[in-house]
């Protein structure tokens, strides 16, 4: 079993979505830059943004695989965000909206209202799972 060209394209698009969404978020919602003061370059397309965008989408993809138990499945990531990163949970919503804007721009015909509500619900559930260990 090896990856088809279509598989590779799908995987690459997930990484691209992550990089694009993160870069956009830092520009569109400047208050989110406060969490990345340790990066030399916060502009869309820069090396830290691209690689971190990939990491984030890796987390989202992991959440998809744990979709039947997000609260339990995301405990480790929740601890990371709660105790180490200390990200205010309102920012999860901001990133979720940005991811959806990117998806809408890349796949306008596929991101129907039905797909939108399902994805919004899913990202909200992921945010809830990530908030689990906060207090």
């Amino acid at each position, binding site marked *: 079993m090896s990856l088809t060209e279509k598989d590779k394209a799908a995987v690459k698009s997930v990484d691209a979505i992550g990089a*694009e969404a993160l*870069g*956009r978020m830092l*520009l*569109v*919602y400047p208050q989110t830059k406060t969490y990345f003061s340790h990066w030399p370059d916060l502009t*869309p397309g820069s090396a830290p943004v691209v690689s971190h965008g990939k990491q984030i989408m890796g987390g989202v993809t992991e959440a998809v695989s744990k979709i039947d138990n997000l609260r339990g499945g995301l405990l480790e990531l929740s601890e990371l965000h709660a105790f180490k990163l200390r990200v205010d949970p309102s920012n999860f919503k901001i990133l979720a*909206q940005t991811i*959806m*804007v*990117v998806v*809408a*721009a*890349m796949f*306008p015909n596929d*991101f129907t*209202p*039905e797909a*939108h*509500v399902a994805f*919004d619900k899913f990202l909200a559930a992921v945010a809830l799972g990530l908030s689990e260990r906060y207090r």
Partner: protein
Amino acid sequence: MVAWTDLERVTIKDIFSKIDYEVVGPAAISRCLIVYPWTQRYFAGFGNLYNAAAITSNPKVAAHGKVVMQGLEKAVKNMDNIKATFTELSTLHSEKLQVDPDNFMLLGDCLAIVVAAQLGKDFTPVVHAAFQKFLAVVVSSLRRQYY
């Protein structure tokens, strides 16, 4: 007073010249009613909102989408004084329609997604940032007359 850069002014006017009001307005309202169903509470008189298909094909929803776009266009034409331009609209939403102002950004988010879908690659991060700032100013102005 909101400080708009020249680039932001040009970008906002450019966005509104490129998007099709007849498509974007109805699509944004429909999405809001579908993705955030509690917003339907303000549209009880609109008839069939039973499912996504009904909402998308509902003529009253579509008509209201165009009304929203006309309101936004007023803001685009008065970018230096959106607050005053929207005083009456804000009072309307607060006293007559009694809309929870937290809902305004829900529609804003749907607008961003619909505009992104229409403009595709042209909805660059810089364009997106200007649009989001515009939406924030509009929402803030609509919230002003709530006491």
